[in-house]
């Protein structure tokens, strides 16, 4: 059974998506349990895979028994075995938390929604698990197309915002495909490991350079790396909460994973950081991304949109960390994939709960929330602490590695940007907390008990949220183990 985990984690959600779409016709109430069961099995196999990799090292799984480079192979190494459980667990918890929300918003469309949801997860997991550059493109499109569908099911402006995303996302994917095409022309292979073996003599080739640049731009577009971010805020803001709290934590992070995969496995750090020698400039781009993300977030008077700009800034963290070109920076970037996925999930789930109860997420809607929804707000506080980077939440530790990487690379601009963004995050979140805490103001400072009662979201929404909040702290405390036992081996030893 455990030999088949790599196939299971793609096949199970894929097939259950079909089952769910059929079940939707029979009895709508069947969809949710099937979807949860499917994602449960997926999460189980992802965790199983991680444990196996910890035990045995890299696993190569030949799909259908075809040997690479002809057949498609799944390579499960230390890098993606870390990302897989994150993707599947985030998807599972988010699904459970959003059952009520989905039923409230789309009473007639629950079947199709769950189908899209499962297909999206299939695509994301496939991207992470595959070892084939072209196969990655296919899965990229699966994830993207289902993502458009999910995001468009939202407010009035959602379809238009999603259309914008569709254009940009398609361009991004095309760029990536074009780059892979170049690679195929010069190497005659699509298998990542195979390509990496064939490339070294071609490092001076302009075609390889073009392939790399085009792939990078495509991936940056997909991950909303400033200034290619313009599609993201609206698309995520106007979507329904279930979709945005699946997509916001995962899509950008999976794309960062793809970038790191391209750098580490396909093109190798030697080519990217030594032959190319543009890392300094890219890190400066990341600095701009972080600063602009933070400043644009400051300009928002709307919680959800503010969070989407924070996502843009966080992408800058990871791109910058990866491009610092040293071990600490890369460790920080990989660690931040995990941490940022979890903390973004946390804050977007909070928005989901708020929307469920208050029917809005503008700042004015948040008044008195500490009293009304104390558990949700507690989770928001923990999520905010993680984004600000307060120990022992996990966000602090990835920031730690990123800054240490910046210092050892001598890139003090990146360090300053990280510090700046932390301070801006304090302002951002405490501005929200102030509204939730003070308003409506009492006429004089009230010695009476504010007796307005609690009006918390349903248990099924609050419990997964609190689990995520606790995970933020637990992951933080286990950073040492994650780095020592997993990430350390994910980075080639050549990188120092």
């Amino acid at each position, binding site marked *: 059974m455990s030999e088949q985990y790599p196939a299971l984690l793609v096949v199970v959600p894929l097939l259950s998506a079909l089952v769910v779409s059929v079940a939707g016709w029979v009895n709508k109430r069947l969809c949710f349990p099937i979807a949860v069961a499917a994602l449960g099995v997926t999460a189980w196999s992802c965790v199983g895979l991680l444990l196996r990799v910890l035990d045995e090292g890299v696993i190569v799984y030949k799909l259908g028994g075809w040997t690479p480079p002809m057949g498609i192979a799944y390579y499960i190494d230390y890098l993606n075995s870390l990302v897989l459980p994150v993707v599947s667990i985030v998807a599972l918890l988010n699904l459970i938390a959003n059952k009520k929300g989905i039923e409230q918003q789309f009473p007639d469309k629950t079947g199709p929604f769950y189908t899209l949801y499962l297909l999206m997860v299939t695509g994301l997991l496939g991207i992470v698990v595959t070892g084939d550059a072209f196969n990655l493109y296919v899965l990229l499109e699966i994830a993207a197309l289902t993502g458009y569908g999910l995001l468009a099911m939202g407010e009035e402006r959602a379809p238009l915002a999603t259309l914008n995303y569709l254009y940009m996302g398609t361009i991004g994917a095309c760029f990536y495909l074009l780059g892979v095409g170049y690679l195929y022309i010069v190497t005659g292979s699509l298998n990542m490991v195979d390509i990496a073996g064939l490339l070294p003599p071609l490092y001076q080739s302009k075609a390889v350079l073009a392939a790399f640049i085009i792939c990078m731009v495509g991936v940056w577009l997909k991950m909303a790396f400033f200034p290619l971010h313009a599609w993201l805020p609206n698309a995520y803001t106007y979507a329904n909460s279930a979709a945005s709290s699946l997509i916001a934590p995962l899509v950008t992070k999976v794309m960062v994973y793809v970038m790191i995969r391209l750098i580490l496995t396909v093109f190798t750090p030697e080519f990217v950081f030594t032959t190319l020698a543009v890392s300094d400039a890219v890190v400066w781009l990341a600095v701009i991304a972080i600063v602009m993300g933070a400043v644009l977030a400051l300009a928002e008077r709307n919680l959800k949109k503010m969070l989407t700009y924070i996502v843009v800034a966080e992408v800058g963290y990871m791109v910058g960390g990866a491009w610092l070109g040293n071990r600490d920076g890369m460790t920080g970037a990989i660690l931040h994939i995990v941490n940022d996925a979890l903390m973004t999930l946390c804050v977007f789930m909070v928005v989901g709960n708020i929307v469920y109860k208050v029917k809005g997420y503008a700042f004015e809607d948040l008044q008195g929330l500490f009293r009304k929804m104390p558990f949700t707000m507690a989770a928001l506080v923990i999520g905010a*602490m993680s984004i*600000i*980077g*307060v*120990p*022992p939440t996990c966000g602090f*530790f990835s920031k*730690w*590695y990123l*800054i*240490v990487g910046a*210092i*050892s690379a001598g890139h003090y601009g990146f*360090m300053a940007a990280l*510090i700046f963004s*932390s*301070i801006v995050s*304090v302002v951002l979140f*405490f501005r929200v907390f*102030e509204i939730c*805490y*003070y308003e409506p*103001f*009492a006429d*004089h*400072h*009230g*010695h*009476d*008990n*504010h007796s307005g009662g609690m009006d918390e979201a349903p248990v099924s929404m609050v419990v997964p949220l609190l689990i995520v909040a606790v995970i933020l702290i637990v992951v*933080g*405390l*286990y*950073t*040492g*183990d994650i*780095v*020592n036992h997993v990430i350390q081996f994910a980075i080639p030893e050549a990188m120092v």
Partner: protein
Amino acid sequence: MNMETIISIKPLLAILVSLLVVPILVLSGKRPNVREACTFLAAGVKFLIVLSMVPVILNGTQIVYTIAEVIPGVALKLRVDAFGMLFALVSSSLWIVTSAYSIGYMRGLKEHSQTRYFCFFALALSATIGVAFSANLLTLYLFYEMLSFATYPLVTHHQDHEARSSGRKYLLYIVGTSIGFVLPAMLISYSLAGTLDFSSQGFLAGTASKPLIGLLCFMFLFGFAKAAIMPFHSWLPAAMVAPTPVSALLHAVAVVKVGVFCVARVLTGVFGTNLLFSLNLNVPIIYIASFTIMAGSLIALSQDNLKRLLAFSTIAQLSYIVLGVGLLSPKGMTGGMLHIAMHAFGKITLFFCAGAIFVATGKKNISDMIGIGRRMPVTMAAFFIGSLSIIGMPPCGGFISKWYLVLGSLQAHQMTILFVLLTSSLLNAAYFMPFVYKAFFCRPEDAMFENKVQEAPAFCVVPLVITATISVILLFYPQPFLRLARMMVQSITGV
């Protein structure tokens, strides 16, 4: 110095007690008596745990406990040494007294959201003890930040416009400096030395150039803005909008002392006295501290609001501690560390008195308190004792720490500092004594209160009598604080 160490979970328990009581406080929110009983229980247990470690520490043994290895080479790690024990003893013992006082104050004023208040108070105490027992800079930073955020709801308790603007100032200064200065300084130190564990002569020596060490030193000095060293002091007067027990325990003892504790810890444990001395870094530190002492005292002279006056007095007194450590002479360092304890008992008494006056009469300004001594003789007697302790006159504990500071400045051949210390004592007398004098001695027609004794509730009065008494006792029996401070200085300087 190779200290003998034993591994024990006690320091972690001391931290966790008040953390774990928080859910119980929330659940018992509807029954205030049960809730307060739990607070007392937690405070008592915490104090007993801390107390149970005292004999071990006095034997010259250290207690260590590793929570988690979060970053290779840097663990979340606790270590109890003499200096940490001194501070933990002061804050955990005063929490018990303050809990009693809180009951009198909060119920006396029928404050809202008392459950929240007691919860965050407990949380703040966890963080305080955590700072005291931190074995390295990362653990220290963790608890420092935890304290910053845990005290925010206490500072802004009233939830009105004034609380909001003070809260903003509080966060801006405290969190802004810790993220802006301490965090990068910590990471640069880590990059330089590869470790963050405090050691008796620091770990930065020989790792970096002179200007970089100097820069780091000032980033730490100003980064711990809880120490209220000028120009990062103005959050403290603003934080006086908090209920008085918060001002008393947190903004005269726990929070601000955490600031100076961190400064002292970093100066001795990260840089090391030899490094500071060889680079002459102690000179700017003592002059910055002296400036803060003089300026704080002078501003205090002009204050009419009693709590603001006490806040500026605290700003000045905190810099005594920094000054003492910055002198780098054994006597001066002893005096500085000892002042953590001595000032704590004196200043908390003064704040308790200010709160008691507010509960009993609703008055906040000194100009409205003429003749208050006739109405509240016990409170004002305690106030007198507290102010004597701050001035540094017998029969109060403050005398001992000032005495050591004076000796220390002689030992370090810093005559200017001697002058600063003496002038400051005069200034302290100048802002406290007129108030005390007018409280007791005024013409009957000037008195603003009827000549009838009417004190605040017993829960307010008893704690302030206790702390005032302890202030006096500390002069005659300054143990174990003096011994702890001496042990710490001995482990640093070998003298």
